[in-house]
């Protein structure tokens, strides 16, 4: 349709022509499809989490037991142990496991992005300043041995 015809349509207060409706319908359909896809896809729940420091896994524990851990760097090596309120840590991230989810509840890193990520039950939490990555892992296939 040319410019004059379009102006004519608008004058008649017909803002949508057939083609426009088709485009909007297609967009709406796509939105619905993505919406359903993200909710209905079976999501692999994590059962364990691993603490990876400088690309090396240094610790692994279950997500099924609530606990408080702390990651810290000592003499260039990353360590993870049970969190103790009495102790003072340097270059640390406090890791809390609750209800099958893991979150960083405290850190002395400059940006605190890891804390902002909140509780997660799949995916990763990353603390770039400390070179730390918390990975959630499904147990995968199980066997007797």
């Amino acid at each position, binding site marked *: 349709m040319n410019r004059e015809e379009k102006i004519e349509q608008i004058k008649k207060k017909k803002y949508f022509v057939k083609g426009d409706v088709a485009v909007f319908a297609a967009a709406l359909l796509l939105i619905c499809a993505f919406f359903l896809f993200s909710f209905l896809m*079976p999501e*692999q729940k994590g059962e364990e989490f691993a603490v990876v420091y400088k*690309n*090396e896994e240094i610790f692994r524990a279950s997500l099924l037991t609530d606990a408080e851990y702390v990651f810290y760097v000592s003499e260039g090596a990353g360590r993870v142990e049970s969190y103790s309120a009495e102790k003072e840590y340097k270059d640390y991230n406090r890791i809390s496991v609750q209800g099958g989810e893991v979150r960083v509840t405290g850190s002395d890193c400059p940006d605190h992005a890891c804390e902002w990520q909140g509780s997660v039950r799949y995916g990763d939490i990353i603390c770039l300043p400390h070179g730390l990555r918390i990975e959630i892992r*499904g147990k*995968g*296939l*199980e*066997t*007797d*041995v």
Partner: protein
Amino acid sequence: MRRCFCILLCLVLLILCGCAAEKGEYFVEFSLSENLYAEGTRISEREREALEDEIGVLLNKIEDEVSTEKRSGDVYRLNSAEAGEEIVVGASAYGLLRLCKDVYEKTGGAFSPSLYNLSKLWGFTPEFEGRYHESRPEPSAAEIEKALKNSSFADIRLSEDFTVVKDNAETRIDFGGIAKGYMSDCVRAFLEEKYGEVSGTFSVMSNSVLMGEKQNDESGLGYTAVLENPRSLVTGGASRNGALYFIGLKDVAVSTSADNYRFYIYDGKIYAHIMNAATGKPSDNGVISVTVLVPLKTDNAGALADAYSTAGFCMPLTRSLAFYEELWKESGICAVVVTADFRYYVIGDCSVLQPKEYAELTNPALAESVENVFTRAETADAEDSVLPCEKEEQYMEAAAEAAH
């Protein structure tokens, strides 16, 4: 009051000391399954935990005798003995040496317990712990030749009365390729003596024993075992740790030797901790993992599974496959050999499933997201020269990066 407090404090300190010592000193890890049955009756959780402790003590005792590190142990004494000196050793060290002689002869020297000097030269003995992955150039040819000269098992003589004599003072024993399998035999003997007929599973590191038939077998698959994925760094999908799965197992000892524990990468090549007694270098035949399954009716099944998996790792591929073929015909021993071109060969009639097949049977929700890693090949098509595939190159890059 104060005295009470002091005693209490001492006790607490003692307990804490105990914990620290136990963790630091012993290397061998052990786990006992929960589905443990004695003469058809389930062993309670409390009893199982007590058993685990009891077996832990037994294993520590054996480790004391046969570890190269324990100064009071038989192996340490033997290793520091002079040529011609008569050393009387305990039952474990002697039993192991006897078994080693048999396997040494059977494998034409591919399995040898006297390669300590070579392992040390290449940086794989325990004093290098924490540095195994450090990239480093090869030792010089002269150094290798010298270590090789002091690594002959023919220089160790056994007499009937637990006496051992070395003809070369420099020769050193290292039971790394058989001790954990031997320990698994001791654990089984202990359980059977205590309970008679036992069903259940346990593992001494990469050596597992599956006793009897699986009880409460809901899936009907019998015992199942995973062949650990030696390339989990770059492959595997949602179930990275498993590369292949065994089903329908019963009364069998399973042991794996692979190149992904103690190794380093230098100049685009993997140097694994398993030494080739013929070349004096880390084994380099394109074999990356060997799993051997020995029926429990065979004497010393655990130790043999351990030693045979090490032996096949050190042979050229076709010889390795022929060796396992012979074991299969002779004693019903099965083996799976995985190579650097991401193929695997199955010898014997064990049921080996790909991750996707196994997922379909046990956890269909994961069937889409798990990844088959290796491709089955026929033993008749095997060749000695194995060319690392593209994925293997990727793995080497990733492993070098991780070690860095």
